[in-house]
């Protein structure tokens, strides 16, 4: 299929521009998920029962509803109902970020719970406030432990970001579909899109493994229990 190869060669720069969009969406969503996920996790571990229950409902909501439904709900529904004018790109980042915050909060919760309890007690014995103990003693250790879970989350969000095509975000999948319907070279183009996603997954998990090595504290690799 030389035609297929020509179509791929022609479309490749256009698809790679789409991968920039994909990467921005994924980074934005993971950043938002991190900013929301850490306080959610801390609240779920150390909060009052009412707060814990509220966070439980939040997590249940965002983990139980499909991404596509949430995208439609936010983009077509809530944006119109509340009369805010957001681009599909922004909504994609927000929705993916909210879903990711629910998943990330569970990753961080597991990491916090896996720390020996003595750490918090020792910090209190030294006269640290709870806030200080959590932010200077618990979180620096827990966030390091959470990196493997985070790398899983990255590969999930990366793949989920392809769904934002449904709103018309010009990411890899949308562009592949656009070129495919024009050139009728569907199979080669979708396959190329798939390969670009594979490469992005591989690069991301590789990068996170390097980060894990970089931030490791010597002597603390085995939870230091």
């Amino acid at each position, binding site marked *: 299929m030389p035609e297929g190869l020509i179509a791929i060669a022609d479309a490749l720069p256009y698809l790679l521009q789409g991968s920039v969009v994909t990467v921005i969406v994924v980074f934005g969503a993971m950043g938002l998920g991190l900013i929301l996920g850490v306080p959610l996790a801390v609240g779920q571990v150390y909060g009052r029962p009412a707060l814990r229950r509220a966070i439980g409902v939040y997590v249940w909501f965002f983990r139980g509803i499909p991404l596509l439904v949430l995208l439609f*709900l936010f983009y077509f529904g809530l944006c119109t109902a509340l009369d805010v004018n957001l681009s599909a790109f922004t909504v994609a980042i927000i929705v993916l970020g909210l879903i990711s915050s629910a998943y990330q909060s569970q990753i961080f919760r597991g990491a916090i719970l896996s720390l020996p309890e003595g750490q918090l007690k020792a910090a209190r014995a030294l006269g640290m406030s709870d806030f200080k103990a959590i932010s200077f003693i618990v979180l620096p250790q827990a966030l390091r432990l959470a990196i493997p879970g985070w790398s899983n989350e990255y590969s999930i969000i990366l793949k989920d970001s392809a769904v934002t095509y*449904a709103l018309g975000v010009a990411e890899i999948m949308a562009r592949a579909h656009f070129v495919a319907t024009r050139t009728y070279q569907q199979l080669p183009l*979708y396959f190329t899109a*798939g390969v670009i996603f594979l490469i992005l*997954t591989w690069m991301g998990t590789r990068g996170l493994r390097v980060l894990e090595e970089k931030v490791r504290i010597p002597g603390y690799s085995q939870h230091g229990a």
Partner: protein
Amino acid sequence: MEEWLYIQNEVYPALLKGFWVSLALIVPSAIFGLVIGIIVGVLRVYGNRPVMAAANAFVVLFRGIPLVVQLFIWYFGLPYIKIYLAPFVAAVLGFSLCSGAYHSEYVRGALMSIRRGQMLAAQSLGFSKVKMIFSIILPQAIRRALPGCGNEIIYLIKYSSLAYMITCVELTGEGKILASNSFKYTEIFLIIGACYLAMTSVASLLLSRVEDRLRLPGFEHQRI
């Protein structure tokens, strides 16, 4: 009152129809996915070199490529080589293969966690390799893989909404059509979200029931 009539006469029947389509997508995909996962998982652990390599490549491809892209390949891509699939068939095929790849990871982990002694004992009793795998190792491994596989089935319920993108009109698709006609996007997608929440909650309840039912007394804490 008008709102209520609208819900009763239009929303309810349409969503019910969509719900059955969703269910018709999810149940076979979950079953095929599990079967594929068990077969691929076994091949990845006990297969000979080329089989193992092929099974691993299958998993890398189907876990690494987004499900949307896979669905598009099955539905829009295959006609390129003169294979035409109905949207429903393409969706079930895509869901089964993708979730099979994920299931195989859990099955593989569970198979490797079964103590070597079990295998040696079976061999010393004269079991053939196939018989050993199917009557000694797998029954234990599947029980250990169940929590992971259950999660995967929950994911499948949510990802079944992607069938809408290859024109298989299920719950989400019916909702989109309704909402586009009435412009009641918020209400309708909230209802649909509630349907999915109900499905995932019921499924996780059922799965933990199954886990309890299959538990073998005395086999709970057998590590190492």
